[in-house]
């Protein structure tokens, strides 16, 4: 489904920052991958490279066999198949919840108004806020906004969903409702790549967990492996810090 091959990404802010260093991984269809790691470890960059919000400097990234770093590839077509959910929701504040979900359907997928509307209603039902269709995003709680953002991404019928710390900007009591929606998605067989600090979610839903540090993948394994006997010292240290009661 997704293949990342020897990807390098370097930012030049004031000095050179090596965000990704020779990262390679394969993600199969219907697999749920959770990417963990300390801040600045390159996990968000990896996610953003997968739908080319950041362009990798070196290496190859294939989605469904399409080389997205090839200049001849129509990246908009690829992105339509790859849904993304952001830490700060990024809903369109000038459009209602309903319009947020129908906009890309009509503009990108060229669906009819009726078809897009039916889809939006069904998705709002799915994320549990059918009554909020006609309000503007700023009238919603953080959790509700993030659920709308998930619905907006799902409206494109993506093959993959990328989640970039979807619960990090939420108040604690709202994290659950978003995670529930994500768990349901995982159960339905959606291919998901989730960057998160929610270890409970990783343990419960993930097929594999990727631990990254300093731009490189340190360790990959099942949740059982990770939370019972991680191999690397760096992983142990991180988990002990994050799982401290």
């Amino acid at each position, binding site marked *: 489904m997704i293949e990342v091959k020897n990807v390098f990404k370097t930012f030049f802010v004031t000095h050179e920052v090596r965000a990704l260093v020779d990262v390679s991984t394969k993600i199969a269809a219907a697999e749920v991958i959770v990417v963990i790691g300390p801040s600045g470890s390159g996990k968000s960059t990896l996610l953003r490279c997968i*739908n080319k*919000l950041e362009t990798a400097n070196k290496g190859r990234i294939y989605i469904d066999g399409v080389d997205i770093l090839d200049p001849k590839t129509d990246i*908009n*077509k690829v*992105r*339509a*198949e*790859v*849904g*993304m959910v*952001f830490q*700060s929701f*990024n*809903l*369109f*504040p*000038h459009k209602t919840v309903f319009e947020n979900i129908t*906009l*890309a359907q009509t*503009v*990108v*997928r060229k669906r009819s108004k009726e078809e897009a509307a039916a889809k939006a209603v069904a998705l709002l039902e799915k994320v549990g806020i059918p009554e909020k269709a006609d309000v*503007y995003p700023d009238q919603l709680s953080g959790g509700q906004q993030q659920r709308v*953002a998930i619905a*907006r*991404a799902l409206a*494109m019928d993506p093959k993959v969903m990328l989640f970039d710390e979807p619960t990090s900007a939420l108040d604690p009591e709202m994290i659950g409702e978003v995670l529930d929606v994500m768990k349901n998605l995982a159960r339905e067989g959606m291919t998901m790549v989730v960057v998160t600090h929610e270890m409970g979610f990783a343990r419960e839903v993930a097929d594999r967990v990727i631990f990254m540090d300093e731009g490189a993948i340190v360790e990959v394994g099942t949740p059982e492996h990770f939370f019972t006997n991680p191999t690397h010292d760096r992983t142990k240290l991180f988990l002990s810090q994050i799982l401290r009661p």
Partner: protein
Amino acid sequence: MNPDANLLRFKKSRTYYLSACAFFLIIVGVVLALYYSAMSIDYVWRWYRIPQYFIYLDKVEIRAEIEGEVDSITTKDAKVVIVVKGLDESESYSVPTGSVSVEESDFIYFGDVLAQYEKWRVGILIMGLWLTLKVSFVAIIFGIFIGLFAGLARISSNPALKWSAITYIELIRGSPLLVQIFIWYFVLGTLINNLLAKQGFWQIPPIWFGVAALASFSGAYVAEMVRAGIQSIHRGQTEASRSLGMTYVQSMMHVILPQALRRIIPPLAGQFISLIKDSSLLGIIAIRELTKATREVVTTSLQPFELWFVCALLYLVLTFSLSMLLQYVERRTLAQ
């Protein structure tokens, strides 16, 4: 209630009223000082002469254009039709009832008055005001389009677009509008009209060079506002729309610009108000807008004091209504 608080409020309101009185005293003082100084140079205020430049009763005389006999005078739909028959020609004139000064079978010479009546006409100041309004309106519309395009080009990553936009914006913002009007009229106007004449096309009247000067001038400022407006929209909005598969243009049209334009309404309003005021410079290329019209009236009426105040007041009416209108638009878009 706490008596101290009441006392405090009383104190506050007393200073408030005192200041209000001071304000009105200042206004009255300025007016009186002006009036007094005008008196001391023997200026005679003749406000009653001003209304005729807004609207006046014009005497209209209908004169015969041929020689002959009045053949018939018939009333038709509140109009009177006079038919004059000459040797081998006949003419008919349609005039309002009650204005006819000839009778049937009168012999008419060329240029004789057939009818005379009075008609209300708009004065030169109103015509000037109307022209100012028209010129400003057209310039604003063009300015918006130029500004939108140049603003988008300004943030484009294509160097041809970007550098052209920067050159345009810097050239316009770095030179006086008066000079730009001269260049448009005397340089570009001459070139364009001569080229057109050589090709046998029609000529562009000066007013369009004036409009072009104003539009290109405000376009440069609008472009900077558009750029700032777009850049003020959070990066996440672009990322979200692009991640859904929208192209750059789709993302701009549906997501970024609607939000950016809403944000730039207030500075845009200020720009358009100064555009209306700047249109007063167009008088120098023989466009008879409000200021030029006032200047002409001043030379004929010799009442400069009244007329220049009236002129300023008319501009104030225009700018104030525009600012009210845009405030209304802003409130409506913010309320969604």
